């Protein structure tokens, strides 16, 4: 029945049809609803049923625990700031968070997919499913107080300049979601850091609480960076009931996502483990190094639990397109992300969160790491060939 529906609609969208300018949209929806029955023309006659749609949809599934908890945490932080935790049900807290997040997700997808469809139409290519993940990641790595217009601007900037300009998904150098965050961070710093952006300020209908103007709530890393005592318990850090970007606070939710990605083999354990190893080692060195700032003396394991470290290690550093593509290179790539993230946190007082810049920086170096690994392979093989002759 669905096939017949698409067959009936196709002439309108095909060349010469009235709606031909929306052909990429039609094709995108058709390939979403029906698996293409295209058969192999040359090469292997049979194929594994894994494809990029499956991979992207599993990344989205892996993001769900962090997203759902992030929604709850939005309501929780709002109620906490309004001193109204008692009397609030978990569902009302989650629903408020959901109502806050839904417009952001919708705007992210509308703007991003709109650009992707336009580019696909222009290039006469099939729409790529890569934005399914990016479109969800962007609202999750931003503070809850980010205005929608700002989000739309960041999405447009990243999709056009970080992805499409390089040729689309699979060809980009930098992680588009992090480029969106970096764009906002440097363009609108007051909306991306400080202590006024981490809690939802306004009620939505009967849900949530309108907070008095000037209500602040700093992240633990923000407090430590200002040499204040963070007073956040280890359990809160693990569970995630702390202020922060929407998706990054709950270590448990992120761990569930990590388990899904590692089990399915979509994310590289080499990259993930190396990020934590690099971060733990660097934080430990700062612990024993004698630097007397609050953030330098934060125990190494708390460094890994706070901020965007876990989220970045699991969902951002493992992006197969922008990370190192050689298996050996993944160890170095991940390790240096961990090292850099902690260095930026500790050594740069103006920026308590270092994960974004660390990953973007290593995105830039990933091709060089691969080059070195491949070069070693070339030399090893050449040596063997020479010895054989």
């Amino acid at each position, binding site marked *: 029945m669905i096939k017949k529906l698409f067959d009936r609609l196709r002439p309108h969208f095909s060349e010469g049809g009235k709606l031909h300018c929306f052909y990429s949209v039609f094709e995108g929806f058709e390939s979403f609803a029906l698996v293409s029955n295209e*058969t*192999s023309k040359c090469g292997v*006659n049979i194929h*594994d049923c894994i494809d990029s749609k499956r*991979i992207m949809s599993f990344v989205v599934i892996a993001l769900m625990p962090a997203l759902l908890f992030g929604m709850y945490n939005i309501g929780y932080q709002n109620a906490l700031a309004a001193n109204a935790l008692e009397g609030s049900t978990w569902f009302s807290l989650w629903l408020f968070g959901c109502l806050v997040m839904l417009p952001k997700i919708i705007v992210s997808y509308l703007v991003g997919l709109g650009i992707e469809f336009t580019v696909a139409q222009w290039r006469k290519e099939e729409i790529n499913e890569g934005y399914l993940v990016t479109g969800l990641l962007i609202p999750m790595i931003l503070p809850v107080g980010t205005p929608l217009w700002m989000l739309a601007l960041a999405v447009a900037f990243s999709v056009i300049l970080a992805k499409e300009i390089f040729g689309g998904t699979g060809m980009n150098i930098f992680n588009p979601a992090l480029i969106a965050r970096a764009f906002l961070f440097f363009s609108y710093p007051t909306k991306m850091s400080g202590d006024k952006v981490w809690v939802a300020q306004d009620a939505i209908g009967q849900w949530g609480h309108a907070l008095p103007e000037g209500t602040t709530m700093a992240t633990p890393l923000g407090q430590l960076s200002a040499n204040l005592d963070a007073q956040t318990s280890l359990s809160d850090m693990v569970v995630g009931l702390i202020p922060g970007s929407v998706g990054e606070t709950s270590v448990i939710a992120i761990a569930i996502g990590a388990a899904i990605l590692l089990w399915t083999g979509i994310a590289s354990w080499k990259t993930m483990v190396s990020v934590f190893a690099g971060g733990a080692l660097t934080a430990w060195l700062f612990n024993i190094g004698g630097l007397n700032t609050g953030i330098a003396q934060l125990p190494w394991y708390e460094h890994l639990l706070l901020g965007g470290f876990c989220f970045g290690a699991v969902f951002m550093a493992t992006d197969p397109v922008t990370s190192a593509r050689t298996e050996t290179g993944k160890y170095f790539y991940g390790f240096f992300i961990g090292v850099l993230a902690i260095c930026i946190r500790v050594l740069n007082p103006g920026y308590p969160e270092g994960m974004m810049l660390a990953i973007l920086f290593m995105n830039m170096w990933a091709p060089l790491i691969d080059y070195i690994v491949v070069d070693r392979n070339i030399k090893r*093989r050449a040596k063997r060939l020479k010895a054989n002759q």
Partner: protein
Amino acid sequence: MKVFKTKRGLNLKLTGEAPQNLISAPLPALWALKENCWYGLRPKLLVHEGDEVCVGSPLVADKKNGLVVGTSAVSGKVKEIVRGDRRKLLAVVVETDGKQTHLEGLPTLSVDASPKSTVASLCQTGLALTIRKRPYDICIDGTTLPRDIFVSCFNKMPLAADFNFVVSKRENEFETGIRILKNIAPVHLGINPEQTTAEWISEEDASIHIFDGPNPSGNVGVQIHHVSPVGKNDEVWTLDPESVCLIGAYALTAKLNWTRRMAIGGDQFEKNGYLEVLAGCPVKDILANYALKDGHTVRLIDGNPLVGSRVAADGFTSLTTTSVCAIAEGNETNEVLGWIRPRFKDFSVSRSYFSWLQKGKARSLDCRIKGAHRHMIMSGEYDRVLPMDIMGEFLIKAILTGDIDRQEALGIYEVAPEDFAVAEFVDSSKLELQRIVREGLDILRKENE
């Protein structure tokens, strides 16, 4: 005997494996020499439609130096010269007279002959067309002698022929064939651990190497890579064990006999088994012995599902065909939201599907690509199934970008398209890796000529 253990690869089991039941087919009414038999040579047509030919009569010759000829496997009359675009020669079809008259004066093969005369005899009899050379994976041209000759005695591709069965009771032919080849260059036999006790494998005339690992450990390219890699200026010849038997049989009888035991596999045949038939026979002759099931659009494959090429029901097999398969085309299947369904019946190496719950279960796969063509997204997919110290992904990228120096440095001379077959199967971006590698090799060959 040295044992090479390889870990990378994928053993894929498909329904419709050929049991060891052998049927003999009568001499076909038509026979053809197809263009894929002379890949890498420029053919010069030596006959015209209506010409009478005998077994061993030259039909085409290499235009470059005329040393290698393609000979007729039957006696009869040239029925058709099939040409394609720009008059490209596609096939020479011969109508058989049923007499199988042999051409007189063909050179004989002797175990005492010199390397050059052995090669000359192989070229003049047309048996040279069963031999491919590395680098480039093309037919030999008879002008050079190889460094080594490699024969892989097993094939782990799904639905591939079992050479233990194919060579059984032809041990003498195989042994003689190896002795003939030994005249030309050192011969290396690649076997799997189960073949160490096989009667037809002997250490007397060849070096034996054991390859213990999943598919594609049976690929001769993988075996060459581990034993003695090929460089730009090397030349290594490869052939399958049954072709060795054909050479041996000619040496013993002085008569060309292109009869092969082809594995008939795939779940779209009503029954499976082996067919003893003349290589180059019409596919119709195979279907007369092994009927197709009704109901599905079927793809017939000259070869196995990973390495073979599509062949029409009115087409012909090749001189080097060792198996013919039939699997469902699948183009009438419209799967709603297939990319998110569990797909219990399908197969995937990814644990996002549930194939891992039924390891070793035979699958029935159709020819759909089950996805869409994308840029290379996931990393490490090729390396997991390429048991060579070659960075497959970077080699493919070098070919795509036309970077010849990089291709050479990354080892393009060591690979053939078939070495990337398993990688192409598991590729989530659905790139046509075998086509890409073939194009890369062809460009390099032209550059180096």
